[in-house]
């Protein structure tokens, strides 16, 4: 063991070496999380990221693979998929959907700009 600290007073003053030691720990945490985030990307190619270790669905939204495990109303959904798919392809956008989204964004921006140019006109339209 490294031994105990200086009690509550440890928050008051610290030298540079302590700061360096703390920074080392923060870097280590960042490194651990970075490895995990990178692994999460890989794992998600073959398993839905919302599916937990007990195959329960943790998503806040509906999915066609959700299955009730029992009769209980409060019971969590189970994932009914065999789990061997790249979930991201299910969410990949159709080119037409992308185009629609692009046009929608254009419209949002041009309407907002027009409204800013003549606020009284847009008020009147409302």
């Amino acid at each position: 063991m490294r031994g105990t600290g200086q009690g509550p007073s440890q928050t008051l003053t610290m030298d540079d070496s302590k700061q360096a030691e703390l920074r080392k720990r923060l870097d280590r945490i960042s490194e651990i999380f970075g490895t995990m985030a990178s692994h999460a990307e890989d794992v998600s190619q073959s398993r839905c990221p919302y599916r937990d270790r007990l195959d329960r669905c943790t998503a806040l939204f509906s999915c066609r693979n959700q299955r009730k495990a029992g009769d209980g109303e409060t019971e969590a959904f189970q994932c009914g998929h065999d789990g061997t798919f790249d979930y991201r392809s299910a969410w990949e956008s159709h080119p037409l959907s992308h185009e629609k989204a692009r046009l929608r964004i254009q419209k949002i921006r041009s309407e907002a700009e027009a409204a800013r140019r003549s606020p009284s006109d847009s008020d009147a339209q409302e």
Partner: protein
Amino acid sequence: MSELSDITNATIRHEIEEYVEIQKERDRNVELFSRTQPLMQEIAAALIEGDNELVDQLTLRALDAGIDALEVMDDGLIAGMGIVGIKFREAFIFVPEVLSCARAMKAGMKHIEPILSASGIEPLGTVIMGTVKGDLHDIGKNLCIMMLGGSGFECVDLGVDTTADEFIDAVEEHQASLVGMSALLTTTMPYMGVTIEAFIDQGIRDEVQIMVGGAPVTEEFADAMGADGYGKDALECVEQAKALLKL
């Protein structure tokens, strides 16, 4: 050389016995935990179980008892997260469990932050994070929050289905200089544009950097909606955040 039986905490013994299969890692963890205080083992066990309330209480208790912050980080929080990392790599647990453990880590780190500040280590910046209105997908955003938090940013999580007003209110309340918006659907992605326009209408667009991400979002879309940055995953999100704040 230490033995598994030298570890006092039953949960930690079980975790190592059951999930740490590579001998070198097993030896390292047995060595580590067998020399740590029971309270540090408790913190690590609570973190592995994703019990953020217990990690919160135990970390506070440890610091109040005068245990050094470095020891709490090394032997409690980081040691516990090390086991979580191994379990994730070996497919004993998955993304939802990792995110629970990351939240538990954050609960413990909350008590370390004043000590970091006292040593001159301040958060890199405050980031407001949310999935946009109409969208309930949160894994990508949560991974970004995990990464940002682990990289030294203070994160305010607005959750899912977040309106433009909620983003604006949070920026003003927390004096944040960075906003991260996520969307997973082409139907909800345009709401990022609505939110950016709302920032302009409020007259605070120049005071905040806005980054966007999510499966259908591309650099081109980010530009089209007037965002300042785009990240395709959690790692890029951190790079973007640092670049936007010129860190």
